[in-house]
């Protein structure tokens, strides 16, 4: 498969959406994205963790150490109220963008 670069804003939105449903650790987020998008979107660690940290600095998500069902130590991320607000804004923006693109690409 060819590697395409995800727009950074897009990745943030996808992660936030994932976390708005459920608290997860980093690996879980990556798996979730891959599965739901049917392998279209595959995030490497090199993009995911810096993005997660950036979102933490902006206050959109929160990180806590916890334990997996297998009793392994892992870091779990939760969305914050600020993150939800940002997610809502991003969703709207993205919908608008897609609508606009679709209009342009409509078969003549």
């Amino acid at each position: 498969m060819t590697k395409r670069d995800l727009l950074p804003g897009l990745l943030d939105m996808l992660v936030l959406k994932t976390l708005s449903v459920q608290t997860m650790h980093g690996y879980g987020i990556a798996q979730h994205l891959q599965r739901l998008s049917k392998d279209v979107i595959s995030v490497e660690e090199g993009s995911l963790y810096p993005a997660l940290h950036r979102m933490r600095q902006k206050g959109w998500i929160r990180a806590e150490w916890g334990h997996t069902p297998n009793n392994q130590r892992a870091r779990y991320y939760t969305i914050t109220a600020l993150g939800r607000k940002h997610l809502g804004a991003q969703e709207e923006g993205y919908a608008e963008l897609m609508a606009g693109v679709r209009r342009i690409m409509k078969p003549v």
Partner: protein
Amino acid sequence: MRELFARLRDWIRRDQLDRELREELQFHQQQLERDMSPSDNAHAMRRLGNITAVREAARERWCVPWMDSVQQDVRYAIRGLRRNPGFTTVVVLTLALGLGANAAVFSLLDRLFLQTPSGVADADGLKRVYLTQFYRGEAQIADRYNYPELVDIRSAMPEILSAVYETDSVSFETSSSSRMITATFTDANYWKTLGVSLARGRSFTADEARIEVPGTVAIVSHRFWQRNLNSTGDLTGVNVQLNGKRYDVIGVAPEIFEGLDWGATDIWLTLGAMSIEEFGPGRYWYTIRSTRRLQLVVRPPASVTANALDMRLTQVFRVGSVAAGYELDSIARIETGSIIAARGPLTRGTEQVIATRLAWVSVLVLMIACANIANLLLTRLTERQREIAVRLALGVSRTRLARQFFVELITLTGLSLLTALLVGNWSGSLLRSSLIPGVRWSGSAIDAKNIAGIAGATLLITLMLALVPMVHLRRFGTTNALRNGQRATARNGTLRTALVIGQTALAVVLLSGAMLCVESLRRVMDVRIGYDVPQVAFAIPQLKSERGGVAFQRGAELGQALRETAAQLARAPGVESVALSSHSPMGGFNMTSTRVFGSDSEPKLKGGGPMVRNVSPEYLKTVGMQLTAGRFFNASDVQGAPLVTVVNESMARIAWPGQSAIGQCLTFYNTSVCRTVVGIVQDAHIASVVEDATMQAYLPFDQASKTGGPMRPAALIVRAAPDQMPMALAKTRMLLSTAIPNSELRLQTLEQTVAIGSIIGMIGTVALSRYASSLFYETSIGSPIIPLGIAAVVMCTALLASIIPAWQAGRVSPMTALRSE
């Protein structure tokens, strides 16, 4: 904004974040391996290599690059400084010394010139009043008034709040001891005008504070209340005894208020309590205009401008003077000035002189310190030529290097600043207590204002000194440096020579000032007062008339009582001898027209005179004056006998130069009656510890009046061994209060008088400036010992400075030296 803080916080925690990320990534990898099929293992292996890349990418989120490099620079600087402890110590100490001195002096200046009296409401609205008069073409400024003038001013401007006061010392007596404290005599408006509310009790009522009413009430300061009186109980029944009289304490001042002047007040009394004299029927000190003792402060309403007030006051003053029948000097004027006395137009007081001189000194010291450090920095840079060259060759930019040096410099000056603050605090307290003890200080020597000032100075110095490495780097030739190692360039040499010369010049200025100081201090120490100070005390009783003033007409009774008491006292145990005098030994003199018989001119001496005193024959023995020729008075010098007088050495020298004064004639009181000089005594001080030589003449009581008849004594002088002194004093007080009931007694030892005087005298001479030779006690800049002394010091310093390098150079073998080239 939030993100900025988050980044900063993360930069601080970055090691921890690094660890956490590593753990997180490991977990991620483990999960991947677990979920991966074996065929993908190769994929997994490759991804392992990504961890570092991932970490690097993530780390960018919590890195602040310039802060990292600053931290690097600081670490490098500290390492470098620790490797050269000698250099570091010298620089830090030198700068700390300069800064600390400035910190200490700045706090002095702040107190004198910037701080308003504490505890006063709205101090800027309170003004002092200065009177300028022109006398023989010279402007004379006074800040004291006589009572009638004040009455005029107040009745003409009743709407302006004003306060009248005077400060003096009084004797505070308890059952076991007595000591002098500071008392301020005020009117009823004082507290209201100043806006000070008492912590306890009440202030003076208008009736109590009327000037004709003798004082009966007092308000004490908080400090006095705590130290000497029952500090917790209430005020009923609390009283103090001052100058032999009891005063009821009716109030306690708040802790922060200690008076308007520099010395702190211990107790406030009414104006009526001042030692007062009656100068004839109905003529009291507060009805006559000849003496000016009272200070005036006003609080004009905001609507009155300063100019308008000044003009009104001047007008009132002139009208009042004319009405009183005085010759009005047409250019007399009144102006109001700041409540901070140091800012007023009066010629500078001692404390101001000292503070300003010290400020110059400390600035000079700081400049020397800076020049010194600049020199040291240059030296260091020269030593590090090779290091600099290597770093430049490795690709470090010059900017980066310059920043590195700057960080080193800041570290050094930062350390100096900390040290300076510590030193400044200690030396500030030292300065206060040793040089300006008359002022009451509150708070520590270093406060926020001070710290800000010194930190600012440090920053300025750092920026200035930073020019040194900047300039050096600019001209740096890398290849030359690499090749030649540590050989200094010629340009550096010029700058360094200039710095050394500059430092030496400044140091010479300081040294000369210091030497002048030491000289004059020595002379002050050597001053012989002329009396046996530890063994002499005096008592001055003052009779009160029925109306509360001191009765001058009843002087004859007083004189008789004193004589009888003196006779009794002389027989008391412990008392060596007793004498009578018109004044206490350092308490003044009479001035009367004195002429050398047969000549028209009056002998002139800078200190003035002749000062005349009337004394009993035992005076010489009692005060311990030395007789250098002839004899002192004895029992045969009575009314009717040949008129005699005794003069001091200064007078003998001036009035009859080249001859013996014994047998010469003096006339007094503008008569032409000859009084023969029968003795010459050594010079003695008549008013203060530091004073110019004066001409003095003594007359025996029995012959002292204008017609050659008796005059009355006013003071009783007692001589006792120092350990017997308390007993002698107690006996004196007892005898006097019995012999002269209804009198106020002022009893003091010479030691107390001299102690206060010495400090003030020494203060006046410990001052530093090349233009202040008038302030130096009998020392002039021309005295040869000073340049010689300075030359000696400079040479010794140069010698010491060259010993170590010379010795080291001598130890190096020629072969080593040649080879290292």
